[in-house]
């Protein structure tokens, strides 16, 4: 694996639903919690809108990790969009592993509008985990496999 430069910082794309996770991330801001700046957020109305190709596109464009975050199961603003996400994610995970993208690089999380601290913690954890893994080099993993 290529050795990352010293100042390398992972780039992580977060797809957050408008009603819970995005509000949770906003709450982390209003509460002035400090967390790693590596996660960049894309707002969608519901995690159910997230087409697996969005995640693949993120990795293809140079993301080192992707987080999908939505309402807790049962709390979806659209009743059950997040259940669809859950099902889709299982398939997506398999696809990612076949492509040589390590499981740590993709996370599905439930963050409610009141869980600002949880969002900050997830962002920190994810940044630390990806930093430990180094830059994404899926093509290398695929070749090795």
């Amino acid at each position, binding site marked *: 694996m290529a050795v990352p430069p010293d100042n390398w910082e992972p780039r992580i794309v977060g797809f957050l639903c408008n009603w819970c996770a995005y509000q949770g991330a906003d709450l982390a801001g209003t509460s002035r919690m400090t967390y*790693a*700046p590596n996660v960049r957020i894309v707002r*969608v109305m519901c995690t*159910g809108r997230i087409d697996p190709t969005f995640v693949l596109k993120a990795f293809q464009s*140079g*993301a080192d990790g992707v987080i999908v975050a939505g309402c807790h199961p049962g709390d979806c603003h*659209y009743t059950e*969009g997040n259940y669809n996400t859950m099902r889709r994610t299982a398939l997506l995970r398999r696809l990612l592993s076949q492509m040589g993208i390590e499981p740590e690089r993709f996370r599905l999380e439930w963050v*409610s509008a009141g869980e600002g601290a949880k969002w*900050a913690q997830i962002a920190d954890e994810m940044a630390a985990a990806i930093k430990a893994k180094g830059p994404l080099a899926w093509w290398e993993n695929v070749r090795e496999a």
Partner: protein
Amino acid sequence: MAESENGSDEVKIGVYICHCGSNIAGTVDVEDLTAFAQEQGAVVVARNYKFLCSEPGQALIAKDIEELGLNRVVVAACSPRMHEPTFRHVCQSAGLNPYQLHMPNIREQCSWVHKNGATGKAKALVSAAISRAYYLEPLERREVLVTPAVLVVGGGIAGIQAALKVADAGHKVYLVEREPSIGGHMIQLDKTFPTLDCSACILTPRMAAVKAHPDIELMTYSEVVGVQGFVGNFRVTIRRKPRYVDESLCTGCGICQEKCPWTADSEFDCGLGQRKAIYTPFPQAVPNVPVIDPEHCVYIQKEGKCGACLKFCERGAIDFKQTEETVEVEVGAIIVATGYDLMDPSAISRLGYKRFPNVITSMEFERLCSATGPTGGHLVVNGKEPKSVAIIHCVGSRDQKYHTYCSRVCCMYGLKFSHLIKEKIEDAQVYEFYIDMRCYGKGFEEFYQRAASEGVTFIRGRPSQVTDFALNEGEKGKLVVTCENTLVGAVMRVPVDMVILCPAMEARPDAKEVARLFNLSQSADGFLLEKHAKLEPVATANDGIFVVGCAQGPKDIPDTVAQALAGAAEALALIDRGRVELEAATAFVNEAACSGCKVCVTLCPYSAITFSETEKLSHINEALCKGCGVCVAACPAGAIVARHFTDQQILAEVEALLVDARPATAAI
């Protein structure tokens, strides 16, 4: 960048970066960010400004739209949940479709949460916003009429006040209450702080007014079980439990309750007193119509044995054939006032609740003090008048094992209790065990002074236990409260005859179901979440639904009433406008691409998608669609398009979000 979709007019993007005073500019290098934005393709102008939401800030954008012919606007500022409506309005007023705006969030999700790296992240966010904005399309918003009626859920003081105010404005109100009577917790209280008004005396006229109001339809012993529709047009399903008493025939004479031979613990009196199997919870109940509790009614339990009430009711109002009913009502707005519960302090076993009969909760004390209570207002525990009483504050509040928050009312009602005890038993010793006295309201500090002047003893310290272990003769037969008197720095043992616990006010155990039913969020403490802590105190994430009173968090009666009236004002504003704009960001089916697989039909939570067997195509009813996009992501043919969240827009955003990443390897 390439030409826009229709190829006719050139894309002209204006980028505006807000300093938000120092909120953004203190962390993000706004000049650098502006220069960066200026370099992006299709960007005609990039500016930064101290406060874009201010009038001159808005004018700046409007002027550029008009003079430079901008057709896309990117405002990098606070969360779009804050100011998207503001800047959409700016676009509209300058002649641009409001959906041609995009707002990257560089405050809540950038400058406020990062110490280092905020500028770099802001650049990525702005770059993504520009790319997304490039593909934005104008959308048309539709308007629908608002049903001029309001549903109020919960008949405590909050629900009563809200219902009366809406009805006084001449609109129909449905007031739904789960219990047999309205009145809520407030009607259980004896006196109210700091004025010492008799709680029932000030509340019962309001309850009677609800009953008498021609525009209020009161449904007690009923629960909301379903909510469909959207702001302005809700369809609500209400389940009415059988009372086994015909409300239209009953005169409330009370003979049935007199004759009923079966008793149960009275919920209203916190189990300190008894009620019959057919009962009104308290004498001033509204409606003054009893219910039969099927668990304790022998006629119901043993199929026809007893029937005393049947025999004695002269009006023939007893009706054991009643069954559960479901009614549907249509309303334009909903006010949720479902209240709170007191925590059960037996969870903190060291404080002795349920182990010693003379350890009681604050609500039990209210009932003991009340003239309508089980002792007729005589303060008696264990058959004796207590000569010394300990009042323990913060039981389960300000404690991360139970509830981190302060319950806000205990300090004041603790003082009220001291006063009431002193009033009833002149030579009683009263000890207030507190951590901090929080007497912040109007007349509160004065009341604190008054209690102190009446000889109440204040001990600053959280007691560790209530025990019956006596170390000396003086403690024998007493309860001993141990704590550190933190102002002295010494452990104290205080022998008393009675202990009153002030348990935390907590979200009701079914708050989660309520949140789900009305599609609301809960804050971390379990209470229902308002839209904005300061500026939208009663609105929620679900338009047209408002939350008031203790369902939103612990508060005292004046604050509850203020919120109730705020909720009424919100509902009235919505109804009086008469029309409401619907979400334009809905989905539609690209018929040419639809393969007719019907996957989308089953997925739609709003039944907005129908399948035409003749055309072999799916159709989306845009009045029902809420734009969640589940069908869009699921469509195997990619035939469904989510307006304002198109694949093209999102993919462009993702790609540009990673503008600073090393080029994706061409290895594959």
